[in-house]
C-alpha cells in the first residue's frame, strides 16, 4: 500500500468559479523523495494546501488516500496527528508564543494522538536540543516567539526543525528553498537529508533544480495547468533547468493534437 495516493484530483477555490487542479494523479511510497516542479500558477502550492487541509479549497472530484485512509475526511489537525507535515512557503508569525511552548504543545498533541506517552519537560527540552544540534540550528531560536523577527532563512530552517520534532510520515516541503542564499539552502538540504528514512515519504515542491542537487529525488513530476504533465527521474530536473518548461508544454500539446 502506498503512503500517498492521489487519484484524478480536481480542485477549485471555495465560492469562486476558479479551477486550479485538473486531475492530478500521484503515488508516493514510504522512503520516497519526490519533487514537484512547474511554472508559477501551475497548482503546486495548491496541491500542498489541499493535502494539509486548507479550507479555502474545494475538492470537486477525485480522492486522496493516505496510508489507506481517506485523507479528505480528516480535519487539518487530525492529518497532522496522523503524520502529515507541511513546511510552509510563508511560515506564520505567532507573536508572544515561544517556540518552546508552541512545539511542546504540538509534539505532545501528536504524540497523544499516536498513542505515545507525553514527554516530560526535561525529555522534551533534551529532544529539542538534540534536534536543533543535528540541524545546526542556533538554540536561541527556540527561546524566541514563533517566526517573529526571524530572517527568511531562519524561518525556513525553523520549518525543518519542526519537521524533525514532529516526526511525520509524509513531509511536504512547499518551496522551502525559495528566497534562500546558497549557504542557507545547503543547510536546509542537509537537514532534510538527515531526516530521510525508509518510513518517511517526502514531497518537495520547488521552482528550481538547484535544491535537487543536494536533495536527490527518486522521481520528478512537472506540473502544468493543474496536472502532472510529465514524470521522470532526476535527469528531468536537469533538463528543465537547461531548457525551461515550454518544451514540455509543446510536447503535451502535440500529443493531444
Amino acid at each position, binding site marked *: 500500500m502506498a503512503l500517498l495516493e492521489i487519484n484524478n484530483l480536481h480542485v477549485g477555490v471555495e465560492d469562486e468559479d476558479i479551477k486550479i487542479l485538473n486531475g492530478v494523479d500521484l503515488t508516493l511510497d514510504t522512503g520516497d523523495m519526490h519533487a514537484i516542479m512547474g511554472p508559477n500558477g501551475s497548482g503546486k502550492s495548491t496541491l500542498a494546501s489541499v493535502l494539509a487541509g486548507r*479550507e479555502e479549497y474545494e475538492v470537486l472530484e477525485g480522492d486522496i488516500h493516505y496510508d489507506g485512509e481517506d485523507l479528505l475526511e480528516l480535519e487539518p489537525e487530525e492529518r497532522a496527528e496522523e503524520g502529515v507535515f507541511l513546511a510552509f512557503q510563508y511560515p506564520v508569525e505567532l507573536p508572544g508564543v515561544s517556540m518552546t*511552548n508552541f512545539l511542546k504543545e504540538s509534539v505532545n498533541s501528536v504524540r497523544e494522538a499516536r498513542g505515545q506517552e507525553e514527554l516530560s519537560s526535561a525529555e522534551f527540552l533534551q529532544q529539542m536540543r538534540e534536534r536543533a544540534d543535528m540541524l545546526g540550528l542556533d538554540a536561541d531560536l527556540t527561546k524566541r516567539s514563533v517566526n517573529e523577527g526571524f530572517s527568511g532563512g531562519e524561518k525556513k530552517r525553523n520549518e525543518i526543525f519542526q519537521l524533525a520534532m514532529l516526526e511525520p510520515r509524509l513531509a511536504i516541503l512547499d518551496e522551502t528553498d525559495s528566497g534562500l542564499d546558497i549557504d542557507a539552502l545547503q543547510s536546509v538540504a542537509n537537514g532534510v537529508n538527515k531526516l530521510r528514512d525508509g518510513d518517511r515519504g517526502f514531497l518537495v515542491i520547488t521552482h528550481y533544480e538547484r535544491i535537487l542537487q543536494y536533495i536527490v529525488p527518486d522521481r520528478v513530476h512537472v506540473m502544468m495547468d493543474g496536472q502532472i504533465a510529465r514524470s521522470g527521474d532526476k535527469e528531468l530536473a536537469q533538463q528543465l533547468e537547461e531548457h525551461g518548461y515550454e518544451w514540455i508544454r509543446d510536447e503535451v500539446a502535440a500529443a493531444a493534437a
Partner: protein
Amino acid sequence: MSTSETEYLKGKASEDYKHGFYTDIEAETAPDGLTEDVVRYISHRKDEPEWLLNWRLKAFRHVRDRIDGGESIDWAHLDYEAPKFDEISYFSAPKEKANYDSLDEVPDEILETFERLGIPLEEQKALTGVAVDAVMDSVSVATTFKEKLEEKGVIFKSFGEAAREHPEIVREHMGTVIPYTDNLYAALNSAVFSDGSFVYVPEGVTCPMELSTYFRINEAGTGQFERTLIVAEPGAYVSYLEGCTAPMRKENQLHAAVVELIAHEDAEIKYSTIQNWYPGDPDTGEGGVYNLVTKRGLCKGDNSKISWTQLETGSAVTQKYPSVILAGDNSVGEFYSVAFTKGHQQADTGTKMQHIGKNTKSTIISKGISADVADNSYRGQVKVSKNAENARNFSQCDSMLLGPDCGAHTYPYIESSAPSAQVEHEATTSKVGEDQMFYCHQRGLGEEEALKLIVNGFCQEVLQELPMEFAVEAKELLDIELEGSVG
C-alpha cells in the same frame, strides 16, 4: 502550581460560572438608600473616630448633591442602566464577631467559601511569601503573616482597623490622591466605603512578601465599596495583589472601589489585579457586576515608581482607569492591561499618565480581546505639563477580535505642553488570523488549543509583568475564559 490551585482551576473550567454560590451567613444590613443616617450607621458600626465620620459626611453631602442634580457618566463607550442609588443597601456585615484572632474562630461557612474559591487560608499560611487579608462582604475576617510584617514595621491591615489604630497616617494620606470630589463613584465610595486594605511600608523597607487581598462580593443587593490606601515611604518597595470573584446574582451589583497609592522618594509600588467577577448571563447580559473603580497613584517623590498591571475578565460593565501622577522628577509610571470581554460584557478601561516632574517616563501597554457581542474600549490620556522637561511616553494599544459581532475601540488623548516631550502611540486591531489558526492546526493543535496559544501570546507582554504565582493563575484564567469562545 499547588494541587489545590490545580483543582480550583479545573473546577472553574467545568462550569459557565462556578462561583455562583452563596454563603449562608446571617448578615446585618443597613436599610436601602443613601442618607445621612446610613452614613452615620456605617461609621458607628465600624467604631470609627469622629474625624472619619466627618470626612464621610462631607463626602456624603457632596455626592448627594451630585445624585440629586441628576449627574450621570455618559462619555464612556458603555451602555447600561445607571445604578439606582436609593435602592442599594450600603452596608452589611457578618453578624458574628467581626474580627478574629485566629482561624479557629472563623465560621466554617466562610472558610468553606474560601476553600471553594481556591484560597484555603490554612494552605495560604503554609505557602511561601503571600499574606492574605481576606475581605468577605464588608468586614475583614482574617489576616495572616502579620507578625512577619510587623517585624519589618510594615502595616497591612483592614482599612477600618488602620483608621482606629493609625489615625495619623491614614488621615494624612486618605483622599489626597483621589479627593472625594473627584467623580461620582469616588464621592459615593468616600461617603459609604465599607472596608478595604491599608498598607504602610516604612522608609527603606522592602516588603518581605507579596501582599494579597481577595475581595468577594456577597449578600444580595449589597454594593461593596472598598477603599485601599498604600503608602510607601522613601526607598520602600511593595508589591500588592488584588484578585476577585463574586457569586452569581440576578440584580446588578455595584462595585465602586477607590484605590490610592502614594510613593515617596525612591519608593516603588507594584499593584496587580485579576478581576473575575460575575459577568452576567452570557446570552442576555443580565445580572452581572458593575465594576466602576477609581484607581490612582501619586509618584510624589523623585525617582519613585508606580506600576499597575491588570487582567480584567469579569463583570458586566467595567470602567476603570488606573492612573499615575508623575509629580517627582525622574519618576516612572506603568500601565499593563489585558481586558477580555465576551458574551454581553462591556469594558471601557485605560489609564491616565500625568507628567509633571522633569524626566518623567510612562509606559502603557494595553491588550483588549473581544468575543461574541462584547464591546471593549481603550481610553487613555497622556498629559504633559509645561515644566515636565524631557517627559517620555510610549503607548501601545492592541485589540484582537474573536468574532464578527464584537467591538474594539481605541480613544487615545494626548495633551502636551512641554516642547521637549516625546509621546509615542501605536495601535493595532487584528482578527485572529486564519493563517495563524491553520499554522497551528497543521502542527496538530485543535481549535481551542490554537486559540489559547495565540491569545496567550498576544497578552504575553502584559502577563509577564504579573508576579509569578499570579501569572500562572492569569494564564489559566484566560484559557478558561476562552473555552467556548471559539466561533
